[in-house]
């Protein structure tokens, strides 16, 4: 058990309550005639029960300190860059989004020099475009370049 188990336990209890509620709106049915909400309802009930045990043990039992949350700056930046890629891909198109994505990671996260970051980003995005777009014929969005 670690200290954060108290809060993850609580989170999953709330989550399971929500799923129980949503499942009952779908209709749980009976054991003889299970309806659409039957399986998620009982699965979330199980999750809720297990989370309750976790939370209880974490509050009552001996707990160890959880891992520290320092050094997560890069993790947050990279995950935001990934989300940015997903949101911009259709609009900007594959080539530009890939270039910006690699440039951002190399420059902002890895702190490489501008010239190196830009040339590596150009090379990687061109190589991916040739392999996936031209050779494997993956339907990559052209975005603003295709208009």
């Amino acid at each position, binding site marked *: *058990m*670690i200290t*954060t*188990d108290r809060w*993850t336990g609580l989170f*999953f209890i709330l989550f399971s309550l929500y*799923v129980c509620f949503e499942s009952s709106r*779908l209709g749980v049915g*009976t*054991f*003889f*005639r*299970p*309806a*659409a*909400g*039957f*399986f*998620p309802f009982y*699965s*979330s009930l*199980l*999750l809720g029960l*297990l*989370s309750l*045990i*976790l939370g209880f*043990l974490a509050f009552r039992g001996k707990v160890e300190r*959880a891992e520290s*949350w320092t*050094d*997560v*700056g*890069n*993790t947050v930046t*990279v*995950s935001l860059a*990934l*989300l940015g*890629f*997903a*949101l911009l*891909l*259709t609009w900007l198109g594959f080539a530009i989004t*890939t270039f910006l*994505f*690699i440039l951002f*990671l*190399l420059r902002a*996260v*890895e702190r*490489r020099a501008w010239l190196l970051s830009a040339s*590596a980003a150009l090379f*990687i995005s061109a190589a*991916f475009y040739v392999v*996936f777009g031209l050779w*494997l014929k*993956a*339907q*990559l969005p052209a975005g603003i370049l295709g208009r």
Partner: protein
Amino acid sequence: MAALDGIIQGFAVVLTIKGLAFCFVGVLLGTLVGVLPGIGPAAAISLLLPTTFRTDPASSMIMLAGLYYGVMYGGSTTSILVNIPGEAASVVTCFDGYQMARQGRAGPALGIAALGSFFAGTVGVVGLMFLAPLLASFALLFGAPEYFSLMVMSMTLVTYLSRGSQLKALMMAALGLILGSIGLDAVTAKPRFTYDILVLRDGIGIVPVVMGLFGISEILQNVGATMDREILKSKITHLLPTRKDWQDSAMPIARGSLLGFFLGVLPGLGPVIATFLSYGMEKRLSKHPEKFGTGAIEGVAGPEACNNAVASGNFVPMLSLGIPANAVMAMLLGALAIYGIQPGPLLIKEHPQVFWGLIASMYVGNVMLLILNLPLIPLWVQVLKIPYGILYPVILLFCLIGSYSLNNNIGDVIIMWFFGVFGFLMKKFQFEPAPLVLALVLGPMLEDNLRQSLIISQGNFSIFINRPLSVAFLVVSLSALLFPLLKLRPRLRETTE
């Protein structure tokens, strides 16, 4: 004799230019993935999957399977040379492999790892060839209650054998079941938890989930950490082990192969636990247990053979019962479903070219790996010199393109991103992803069989205990749940101490 006819048919599939090419690409990429830290077989298979949609299922499966057992070969290289396991199944190889390398014996360590893997891989394939059809014909006797109980057993065994807290593993399995129910209900066609989001109507795809949980989350964790890699600078010579090395390694390889295969057949066991058990067993059987951890070749030979045998053994329940033993097999099961093939007892009858082609390809793949692996070691050492800061953006890009290409839909990319962040948080809070993935795959099948059983029995749960096979599976499940309470759960760390 049926097995012999089958394997001849399989060789006819694989010994063509196309079959050989797919097998080669699979094992080569597998070795590369094994060498590269930060990307495991499950994520790699999910990356490669979209590129296989335009080819036939047999060739695709040959390539994806080659990738899995290729990883087992490649993983040992980094463990021995850099003391960083390329993937989790090679953690144990670090203990003695790296020590051997430091003593100037990297060559024999790499050599025995490759030769032991080859032997074990071959033993595993022979076992798979005979056991899978046998189990499949037995499984034809299963009805819905038996399947339900078998799946419950698989999931409880996964949680029982998980490395962390079993309670948390069970929570993840329950969460996986809930996530598996997203999409249209199979009976009533009612949308469940879709919130008018189109990408959720067909359910959450296994591929973006695996890419997120095993690929993205690994990178998110590594970008925050500094990775020191001290690559061996001395030249690697004398790859062939000496006569004494052979004498010391022969029995560990044989034992590792058998142990690995049989543990691989059990649902819930991946190669990681098996290699720890093999290492523990060799240490206990050795006349010089004190040498373990200081460069004992037995400590490399046994676990390396074991992880390859597990890889073959894992295919038995997946191909014959349609039950995946771990996340990688769940991924392959998902791949078969995408190709329109239902794994399970009828697979051998209905798609013999897939089943026997796959088995024959494993023989061929193991030979290819043996020939490939030793001469390519200098190349893998060069690959290891690529800085992680350059490598991970490229891996991320592969994941992004892979998830997008599934359905040319940005929704899959967002799902992958979500599970990447979720997987990172799971690691921080010490939850394991494997039970979630397994439950996500098994969930819809489990629900179908549960509902069918209840309809047959008119809502009476005794149907699960009135049938002998079903009750046997449930007893095993119950034991897996009760053993930890009685403190009978094996502790992996103790095995290696």
